């Protein structure tokens, strides 16, 4: 074994690469990268340039891993929600009654199940649904947070923004219906958007509540107690609204898209 074969790429880069890959991928793909580093890059470019090449490759892996990151973000968001709820219950005992805590736990488990098992789409159609759901979820969640903040600050525009947040799931469902010709696609986009927006809303509410609670002079020091309820309400019941609205939107989108089509147009499956 000559010098090049025992030369090592930067340890931190190798470790970083392993964090953004599954265990099996880390074994085989880091092996490929190490082999390339030793058999061709290092002999041709020298140590410094080869190390830079390796770091650049790892950056590329991390950039591409953002697709997988969707699942990780969702799981991280759900885990943070669970921690926030537990901390809030400890700080404000009795904030969640026994049955409410059980319902929240079931809701979180359903979201976690979806995030773990359905965020790596097996078909192009599922990929479109997931992508649309994530994008609309980001929009809906941001609109809810902004709308509530503005409304609670007495800004009239907040009501209009809340109305938009309420209506965007209809648009999301219609978009999916027109694109994929299935009402079920609208419903699924509604589900994903409710998950993503629910996480944004919940964390937005809780952050707002805790910031207010810890600023001296604010009269309502137990604000997180209220925001916890509001956040959870929007996270789950608001999510149900998104699913229903998106399903209706999906049907409406398909009916709209069918308008003007030839009677000879092949019949399509709507569900």
């Amino acid at each position, binding site marked *: 074994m000559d010098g090049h074969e025992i030369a090592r790429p930067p340890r931190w880069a190798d470790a970083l690469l392993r964090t953004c890959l599954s265990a099996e991928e880390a074994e*085989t793909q*880091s*092996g490929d990268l190490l082999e390339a580093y030793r058999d061709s890059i290092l002999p041709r470019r020298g140590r410094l340039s080869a190390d830079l090449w390796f770091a650049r*490759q790892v950056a590329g*892996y991390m950039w591409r891993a953002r697709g997988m990151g969707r699942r990780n973000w969702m799981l991280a968001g759900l885990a943070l929600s669970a921690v926030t709820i537990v901390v809030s219950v400890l700080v404000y005992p009795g904030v969640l009654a026994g049955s409410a805590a059980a319902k929240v736990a079931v809701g979180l488990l359903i979201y976690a199940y979806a995030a773990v098992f359905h965020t790596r789409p*097996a078909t192009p159609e599922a990929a479109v649904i997931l992508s649309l759901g994530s994008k609309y979820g980001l929009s809906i969640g941001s609109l809810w947070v902004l709308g509530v903040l503005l409304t609670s600050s007495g800004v009239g525009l907040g009501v209009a923004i809340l109305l938009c947040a309420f209506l965007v799931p209809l648009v999301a469902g219609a978009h999916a219906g027109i*694109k994929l010709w299935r009402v079920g696609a609208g419903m699924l986009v509604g589900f994903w958007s409710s998950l993503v927006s629910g996480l944004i809303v919940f964390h937005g509410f809780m952050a707002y509540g805790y910031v207010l609670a810890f600023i001296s002079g604010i009269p309502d020091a137990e604000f997180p107690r209220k925001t916890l309820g509001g956040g959870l309400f929007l996270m789950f019941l608001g999510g149900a609204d998104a699913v229903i609205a998106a399903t209706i939107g999906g049907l409406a989108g398909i009916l709209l898209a069918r308008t003007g089509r030839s009677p000879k147009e092949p019949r399509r*499956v709507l569900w």
Partner: protein
Amino acid sequence: MTFVCTAYNIGEMAETLGTFEQAVLLAIVRLGEDAYGRGILREVQERLERDVAAGAIHATLERLEGKGLIRSRIGLGTPIRDGRAKRFYRLEPAGAAALNDARAAVKNIWRGIRYPLKGFVWMGTR
């Protein structure tokens, strides 16, 4: 519940191979039994005559395997890679069919046009 892929040519999109995917599949064909990540990376770089990111190769391999165009198996590592396992790839019949279709499509769209294009001047009015 019936799941049918119907709109926006999604079914056809799944079958269409991009140039990079073709390069990766053809590298697997050329390398035969020795088609694993590092070898495929080297082969694709040589054929495309440019530097290619290893991550792009692995992402493409994963996508092609997901489409059922290739299949992989884990093999033993070697000292140069510190004994880390290799993943070997093999073309599936669907992959061969997709490559044939891609080749036929290129031939069809070039039919009647002399290659390489030389001195082409825009003759339309502006």
